[in-house]
């Protein structure tokens, strides 16, 4: 069976031994094959970097569309396809179809999977019915459906091998994130931070679909999967009841801390890394306390889920700055010393660099100069507020209070960056980050909780920073010094995932629909092409038949599809004058296409 699988699906990969326990080694090896794109984030370290170098800064200007594929769905298309040998696996937003295409046979559809889901899950998805992609492991394709079902499909035939229900949409839980296969398990998070769901990351056995462990973001120590004496926060043990004592009463039960972002993994130390989202509600006055462990970076043992270290970036969140963005792992030198790093571009506008083994905080700097809610993170190890951001009263919605409109906070709730993943190039040691350049007014007010209904509690109004009209930047970032190296303005938020290649090119997509290629060293724009719809997908690359291809999903939507569709409001607008910044709807409409580019033959 494995030989057949190998021949038809996996191309020429070295023979691997039978058994799920080594799915880990198999995946590590596969993810090192630059011809493939085996994991949603490119590799376990979430670098979105490819060693392919057929396309270079010198020739990318000649890039052409090689082929296209319509997904048959019209909603926000996040994520990107997997490529394993000659097979490509394309996923879609709700209804979450999966197509298996044979790249060696004119991209023929070998099989198609379409789950039957109750459409009543749609209104429980706060920010469009997106999906960030499938995962591969042990001969199976794993799909995280909108209704939270995690389904394992035979990669050859698309047949369902097992399925597991991860949450309850009637209570507001849904699924949008991509799974991660680690050793003999599949890991998956869950969504519902705007619905008061007590969120978690769950590991399922890769062969049977049985739950192996589940780690909540808030709750009792048992639920958190922590050791009060061994799990550390900036070097200090977190102690007992570290979560529940930072909430009022039972509020942690509807606490949020959702885990709908990206997962990364370091096989050498067997640690999985991810971040948790906002605490529920958006009204900070209704949930006094630090609300741990929302807005937190977790480092957990992949076998049993036990947390080795944690770090909360935005204690007692007042702005919806979810901490779920990707944790990019890199090995770099700082001050002449080899360090094992974790770099994270948070919604809150700070670019963090940490030691991924110990959880030590090394750098926390603004990656958009307009970020204003904090004057910075206390980096003094002996200070009682070590590791905490200093919140400025003027931009504190807690200080402003209920029913008062706190104005001009930067970044807006959608953050300086949302889920759209950055890329890291070991060649330049720069991070390439798609950012939002948007500020907001935020007015909290009292709300009551109803299971399955939105539990929000704030009025939001978003707009570009004062005196500016552009709403996005694509930047290059030095994570050792915490500095922006170059920055390209974009009229709209850059909501696509970036790709860095050994050819010295960096790719990203824009909300108007352009696939762009820039020079990795200077940021100079080298190529652009307008695809059928706005891009919120993640660019990736693969090789087939000796040619390098670059692929990206187009299909405007996501949170960007809301705020930018009709243009944001000009806060200096006079009484009733028709204002508003350039509307995205002037540039693009709904779509659902995969566009694949290559150099001309």
């Amino acid at each position, binding site marked *: 069976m494995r030989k057949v699988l190998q021949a038809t699906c996996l191309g020429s990969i070295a023979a691997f031994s039978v058994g799920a326990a080594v799915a880990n080694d198999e995946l590590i090896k596969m993810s090192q094959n630059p011809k493939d794109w085996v994991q949603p984030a490119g590799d376990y370290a979430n670098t979105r970097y490819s060693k392919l170098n057929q396309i270079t800064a010198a020739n990318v200007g000649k890039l052409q569309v090689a082929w296209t594929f319509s997904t048959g769905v019209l909603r926000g298309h996040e994520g990107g396809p997997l490529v394993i040998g000659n097979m490509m696996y394309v996923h879609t937003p709700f209804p979450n179809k999966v197509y298996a295409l044979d790249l060696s046979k004119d991209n023929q559809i070998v099989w198609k999977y379409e789950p039957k889901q109750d459409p009543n899950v*749609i209104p429980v998805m706060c920010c469009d019915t997106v999906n960030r992609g499938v995962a591969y492991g042990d001969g199976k394709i794993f799909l995280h459906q909108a209704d939270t079902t995690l389904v394992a499909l035979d990669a050859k035939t698309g047949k369902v091998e097992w399925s597991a229900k991860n949450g309850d949409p009637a209570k507001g839980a849904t699924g949008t994130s991509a799974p991660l296969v680690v050793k003999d398990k599949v890991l998956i998070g869950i969504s519902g931070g705007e619905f008061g769901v007590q969120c978690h990351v769950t590991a399922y056995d890769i062969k049977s679909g049985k739950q192996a462990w589940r780690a909540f973001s808030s709750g009792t120590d048992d639920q958190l999967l922590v050791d009060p004496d061994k799990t550390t926060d900036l070097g200090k043990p977190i102690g007992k009841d570290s979560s529940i004592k930072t909430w009022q009463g039972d509020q942690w039960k509807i606490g949020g801390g959702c885990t709908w972002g990206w997962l990364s993994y370091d096989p050498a130390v067997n640690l999985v890394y991810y971040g948790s989202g906002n605490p529920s509600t958006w009204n900070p006055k209704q949930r006094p306390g630090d609300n741990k462990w929302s807005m937190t970076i977790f480092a957990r043992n992949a076998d049993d889920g036990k947390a080795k270290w944690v770090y909360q970036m935005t204690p007692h969140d007042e702005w919806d700055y979810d901490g779920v963005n990707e944790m990019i792992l890199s090995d770099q030198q700082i001050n002449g010393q080899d360090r094992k790093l974790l770099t994270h571009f948070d919604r809150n506008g700070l670019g963090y660099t940490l030691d991924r083994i110990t959880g030590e905080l090394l750098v926390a700097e603004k990656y958009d100069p307009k970020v204003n809610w904090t004057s910075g993170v206390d980096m003094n190890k002996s200070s009682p507020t070590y590791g905490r951001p200093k919140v400025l009263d003027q931009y504190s919605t807690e200080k402003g209070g209920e029913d008062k409109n706190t104005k001009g906070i930067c970044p807006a709730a959608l953050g300086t960056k949302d889920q759209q993943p950055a890329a890291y190039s070991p060649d330049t040691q720069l991070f390439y980050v798609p950012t939002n350049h948007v500020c907001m007014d935020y007015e909290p007010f009292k709300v009551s909780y109803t299971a399955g209904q939105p539990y929000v*509690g704030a009025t939001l109004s978003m707009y570009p920073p004062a005196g500016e009209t552009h709403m996005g930047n694509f930047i290059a970032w030095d994570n050792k010094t915490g500095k922006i190296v170059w920055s390209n303005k974009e009229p709209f938020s850059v909501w696509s995932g970036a790709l860095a290649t050994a050819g010295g090119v960096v790719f990203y997509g824009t909300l108007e629909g352009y696939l762009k290629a820039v020079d990795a060293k200077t940021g100079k724009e080298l190529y652009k092409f307008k695809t059928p719809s706005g891009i919120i997908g993640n660019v990736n690359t693969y090789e087939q038949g000796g040619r390098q291809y670059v692929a990206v999903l187009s299909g405007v939507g996501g949170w960007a599809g809301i705020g930018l569709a009709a243009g944001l409001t000009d806060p200096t607008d006079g009484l009733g004058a*028709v204002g508003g910044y350039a509307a995205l709807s002037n540039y693009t409409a709904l779509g659902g296409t995969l566009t694949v580019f290559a150099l001309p033959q």
Partner: protein
Amino acid sequence: MELLHAPVRLPTNLEDKLLRKFWFAAAAMIFVVSGGTSFAEDAVDPAAVKSEDGKYFDKEGNPTFKVGADGTVDWYTYSGYRRYHSECHVCHGPDGMGSTYAPALTNSLKTMSYGDFVSVVASGRKNVSSSQENVMPALGDNPNVACYMDDLYIYLRARAHDAIGRVRPAKKEDKPEAYTQAENSCMGKK
């Protein structure tokens, strides 16, 4: 009518639960009376002809907005702006302008009657076909919406008739005492 069945867990007393059930009953009655799911072609003049406790009504007796010459809006319009931008804008976009997956209510409210509005918000809407999957939840069970139904209608009606622009209303009438009482009673506040 699609009703999202969810257990209602709120610290309310029986009286408030009955109030919410009243909304459903009223919505259902108005729904039936107005003849089904088609939009009533409503060319009713939105001008306010009478007021009661800071709330304005058009000549048909439906709630409406009142904008003064200097731009001062009535309390309900202002409150509707806030409630809209908490519960509705995540799908329907800022200022009722629509998104890639939910219609612009500044358009819809040009012709949608009060009765239709209440029934759609309370019981949701499903437009699922081979080319689209747009589903609106039933918000009648959500006091954060159900208690502010009129505020939302009045705000969106004002937007649909260009009576107010896209920004937060700068000047507003005071919050009427009767409003505070009704709000507390509906939301179950002490």
